[in-house]
C-alpha cells in the first residue's frame, strides 16, 4: 500500500473542489467499510480520501410526516435505526440498515456509501427504491436529482460524474395503509452477503392491493426495480395465487449469474420465494399501519 492523502472537507464546495483536483484517484470517504477494505486489498488505487463526515448537509437526518425523510449520505446505520420516528415510518429501510454487517459495521457504514459502492447485493438499495427515494447530487455543475432505481448503472458504477457526490436521499412521507418489507437470503444468519434479496412495498385498499413496488438485490448487475410486479398487483385481491404470481414475475425479471455465493438457478428461485415473503411481510405491516 502506498501513502494516501486524507482531507476532512467542511463544505460541499470544498469536497467538490478536492474531488475535481484529485481526479480518478480521489474518492469520497464515508464510513470506509467498503472503501478502506478495497484499498487494503489492492482492489482500488486511491491517492486521496475526501472525508465527507463533517459536512453539515451530509449529516442531515430529518423526518416529519408532511415532508418525509431527508437522509444525509454520511449518516451511519445506527443513527437511522436509533431514531424512533424514522424506524416507525420506514421499517423496510430499517430491515436493511439493521442487517448490514454487524453492530460494529453499523456504527460506521452509511446508506450513502452502500448506494455509491453500487454492489448488486447492497442491502439498503432495494428498500430505498420501493420507498421512492430520490438522490440529491451536488457537483461542479451544481445540484441534480436522480431516483434511486436509476442511480446504479453496473457493478460498482453509478451516474455520478467527475467531481460529483451524493449529498442526501429524500423519501416521500409514508402513505396511509402502506408499508414495506425487505429480506435477503444468506447461508449464514449474519455476517454474510445476500445471495438474493427482495424489497416489497404495498398500499392497501381494504382487501385489495392499491399499488405495489418490488425491487431485488443480487440478481442482476445492479439492484433491480421490477415494475412488472407492481403493475400486476395493482387492484388485485390478496390471495395466495396472486402472491405466487407476483413471485413468478420477480423470478422472470431476475437475470442472475452463478458465482461462489450462489447459482443462477438458486437466485432465480429465491427471487420468487423472497418476493412472496416480502410481500406478505409488507401486507402485514400495511394492515397494522
Amino acid at each position: 500500500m502506498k501513502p494516501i492523502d486524507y482531507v476532512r472537507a467542511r463544505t460541499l464546495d470544498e469536497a467538490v473542489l478536492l474531488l475535481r483536483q484529485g481526479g480518478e484517484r480521489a474518492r469520497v470517504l464515508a464510513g470506509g467499510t467498503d472503501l478502506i477494505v478495497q484499498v487494503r486489498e489492492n482492489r482500488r488505487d486511491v491517492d486521496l480520501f475526501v472525508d465527507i463526515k463533517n459536512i453539515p448537509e451530509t449529516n442531515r437526518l430529518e423526518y416529519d410526516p408532511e415532508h418525509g425523510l431527508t437522509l444525509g449520505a454520511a449518516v451511519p446505520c445506527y443513527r437511522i435505526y436509533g431514531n424512533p420516528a424514522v424506524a416507525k415510518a420506514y421499517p423496510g429501510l430499517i430491515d436493511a440498515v439493521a442487517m448490514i454487517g454487524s453492530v460494529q459495521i453499523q456504527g460506521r457504514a452509511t446508506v450513502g456509501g452502500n448506494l455509491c459502492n453500487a454492489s448488486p447485493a447492497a442491502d439498503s438499495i432495494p428498500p430505498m427504491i420501493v420507498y421512492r427515494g430520490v438522490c440529491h447530487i451536488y457537483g461542479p455543475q451544481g445540484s441534480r436529482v436522480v431516483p434511486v432505481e436509476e442511480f446504479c448503472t453496473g457493478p460498482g458504477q453509478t451516474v455520478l460524474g467527475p467531481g460529483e457526490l451524493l449529498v442526501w436521499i429524500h423519501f416521500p412521507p409514508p402513505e396511509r395503509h402502506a408499508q414495506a418489507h425487505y429480506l435477503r437470503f444468506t447461508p449464514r444468519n449474519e455476517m454474510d452477503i445476500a445471495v438474493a434479496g427482495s424489497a416489497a412495498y404495498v398500499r392497501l385498499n381494504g382487501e385489495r392491493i392499491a399499488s405495489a413496488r418490488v425491487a431485488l438485490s443480487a440478481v442482476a448487475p445492479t439492484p433491480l426495480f421490477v415494475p412488472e410486479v407492481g403493475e400486476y398487483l395493482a387492484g388485485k385481491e390478496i390471495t395466495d395465487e396472486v402472491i405466487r404470481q407476483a413471485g413468478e414475475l420477480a423470478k422472470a425479471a431476475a437475470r442472475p449469474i452463478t458465482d461462489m455465493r450462489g447459482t443462477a438457478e438458486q437466485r432465480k428461485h429465491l427471487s420468487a420465494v423472497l418476493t412472496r415473503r416480502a410481500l406478505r411481510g409488507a401486507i402485514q405491516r400495511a394492515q397494522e399501519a
Partner: protein
Amino acid sequence: MAEEKKQFRVIGTRPIRHDGTDKVTGYARYGADIHLSGMLYGKVLRSPHAHAVIKRIDTSKAEALPGVMAVITGRDLPEVADRLEELGEQVTNIRDESHNVLATGKVLYHGHAVAAVAAVSPHVAEEALKLIEVEYEVLEPVLDVLEAMKPDAPLLNPNLRTRGIGEEDGKPSNIAQHFQNKHGDVEKGFAEADYVVEREFRTTMVHQGYIEPQNATAYVRPDGSVTIWCSTQGAFAVRSQVAQLCKIPVSKIKVVPMEIGGGFGGKTVVYLEPLAVLLSKKTGRPVKMWMNRAEVLQATGPTSGSVIRVKMGCKKDGTLTAAQATLIYEAGAFPGSPVGAGAGVIFAPYRLPNVQIDGYDVLVNKPKTGAYRAPGGTNAAFAAESVVDELARLCGMDPLEFRLKNGVKEGDRRADGPRLPRVGYLETVRAAMESDHYKTPLEPSPDPTKRRGRGVASGFWFNGGGPSSVLVKVNEDGTVDLIEGSTDIGGTRASCAMIVAEVLGLPAEDVHPHVVDTDSIGYTSVTGGSSVTHKTGWASYLAAQEVREEVIRRAALLWSVEPAEVEYHDDGTLTCKSDPSKKTTFKEIAAQMNRTGGPIEGKGTINAGGAGPGFGTHIVDVEVDIETGKVDILRYTAVQDVGRAIHPAYVEGQIEGGVAQGAGWALTEEYYYDEKGHLLNSSLLDYRMPTALDLPLIETILVEVPNPNHPLGVRGVGETPIVPPAGAIANAIYDAVGIRLTRLPMKPSYVLEELIKAGLTS
C-alpha cells in the same frame, strides 16, 4: 495402572484457567506483538496460477526500491534431503516442504510462494512485490482426484510413482499411494447380507479456520545463532524443520512459542519461519512476517476434499456382515493426505467380520493438505454413517439400537489391524439413548415451509501420545511453577497444573504453568493428536511425584525419621506415623527448603504410549426450509467417552468447538475454485464458517471410561467431536425431507437443487 482412587480434590473441578486473565485483558502476547529494534517486515509473492513453470524471476527492480533490504527466491534455499519428519498427526517430507515454502521450477497451486522481500515497512515490502517480474509458462491444472488418477492427466511431479500394493505399472502418476486394509472376505459377507447399500460421497477441501494467521519473526545473530518467535503447535517441530530446511544445527536455533490463536492441526508445518530466517540472515536484522487471510486460505494446509465409496451389508436383524470402502483423498500439491487416518476412522465404531478398505493419496493443484482436527475423519464418517443410517432404516431399527447391536468393545479388531483396548463406545450409545434430547420427541414445525428431522451418528479418533518434558519447581511461598513445552491451545496449562495440584495436595491456583522456549525445557512433541493432557499430563504427574518424594524426605529429615514413617496426605499435610504430634505441610517444607537441603525440583520426561481411543455419538435436530434449502440446527447433543475429565469445562469446550467446526464443514464451508484452479473465496466473508448465530447451544454429555493405560485415566478429547457432525446432520436432513445427500457442504444451493428434483418445491 490407572489410579483407582475415586476421590479427587482438584481433578474434576472447574477452576478459572491460569492463562484466563492475560487473555481477557489483552496482556497475552501473540506473534503480532513482537517488536524488536531494527526490525524489518517480510512479505511473500505468490503464484497467480495453479500450475505453471517458472521460466524466469527478475528481482532487480524490487531490490532497487528504496527501503527494500533483501529479496529471496527458491534458489536461496539449500538443497535438502528427501527425509520424513514426524509432526504428530502428519508426516512431512522435508524436500517437499522446501519446495512448498518457496517454489523452485514449478508452481503447483494458486498462492504457492515464489519470492519473499524484507523491507523497512510492510507497505514498502508490499510495493516491492509488485516489482518482481516472474515469467510463467502456464500448464493445465488438475483439480479433481478422479481426473488426476487418469493415465493421461497432467502430472504435478513427473518423477512421482505410486507407492502401492503391487498392481502399479511404474509409470509416473499423480497417485502417490494406494493401500489396502483387509480382513475376512467381503464377497462372502455381502452374499450373507439381506440388505446391501452402496453409495458414493464427495466432499470439498476445508480449512481449520484458526482466527490468528500464521506469523513468524526471526533474528539471526552475527554468531549464527537464531531466535524465532512464532505461532505454533510445536516449538520443537519448528526448530527441527527450520534446522533441516535452512541447514542450521538444531542447537543454534531457539524457538519461542508465542500465545497461539488457534491451530487445529494447521500450525505444525512451517511456512514463514524459514523465509524469515533467510531474510534475517541476508540483512543481519530481525524480520517479522505474517500472512493475511487470503494467504492463510490459499497457501497453508487445509484438509482434503475427497471421493469416498462405501458399501455395507447387514442381515434383517441388523447384524453387519461386511463393509467395503474406497477413499480417494486430495493430497494437494505434494503427497501426504490423511487418507490413512480416514481409513482407520471410517468403520471404527462397528464390529465387522469382513472388511476391505482401499485408500488413495492423490496429487492435485491445490495447497498441500495439512492436519485438521481428526484429520480425514469427518468426511469418512459422513460417508459410513449415512450408509449405516440407511441400513438401520431398511431393517426398521432405531439407528442407535442398530449401533448398539454392532458397536465395538474391548478386544474387537479395527479394520486397520489393531485390537481395541478398553473403550467406551457402547457407553456413549447408551447414554445417547438415555438423553433428554433423544427421549424428547421432535415437534413438527408450525410453518408449512419448514420440515424437521432428527439424526444420529458416531465417530472415532485414535488419539496420540509422544515425547514430552515437564519441570516442577517449588517456590519458598509454597506454590510451584510448572514448566512445560506443550503450547496451550485447548486449556492444557490448566489440565496439567491441576494434575500437579492433585498430586501435591495444593489448590489449582498454587500451580503456575509456563510454556517456555526450546532452550528452557526438554524435547516436547507437538500439541496435536489430542495428546497433551495424556503425555504432558503424564509427565506432569511424574514430575509432581518426584517433588512429593522429595518433600517426604525433607519432612523425614526434619523429624529425624525414616521417609517410610512420613505420610503425605491428599490435602498437602504431612504426618509422622510413629509420632502423631509431628505435623507439617507442603507450604512449611517449601519455606524451609533452602535450609533442609536446597531447592526442590521434580522432572518428568516420557515418550507416552497407551493413548486411549475416543468414541462419540451425536444427536441433532434440524429444520429444512424447503423453499430455500437452508438447514438450521435446532438442537445438538454430543455424547463422548472422555476417559477422565480433568477440567470438565474445557472438555465440554473442546466438544462444543469440535461440533461447531463439524457443522461448518457439513453445511457451509468449502474451497471454491474456478476451472483454472483459482481459489475464489479466500476471505472469511465467502469462506463461510458458522457464526454464533448459526449454532444452537451445544449440549454435552461426558461419559467417563478411564483409559487403563494412563495414571489418571486420561483420554484425548479434542478431535473425536468433529468426526460425527456431518453424518449426523445428513441423517437428520434425510429424516426431515427424505433426501439422502451425498456431498459436502450441504449448502442451500445443493439442498435446494435436490428438493426441486424430489418435487418438494418448485
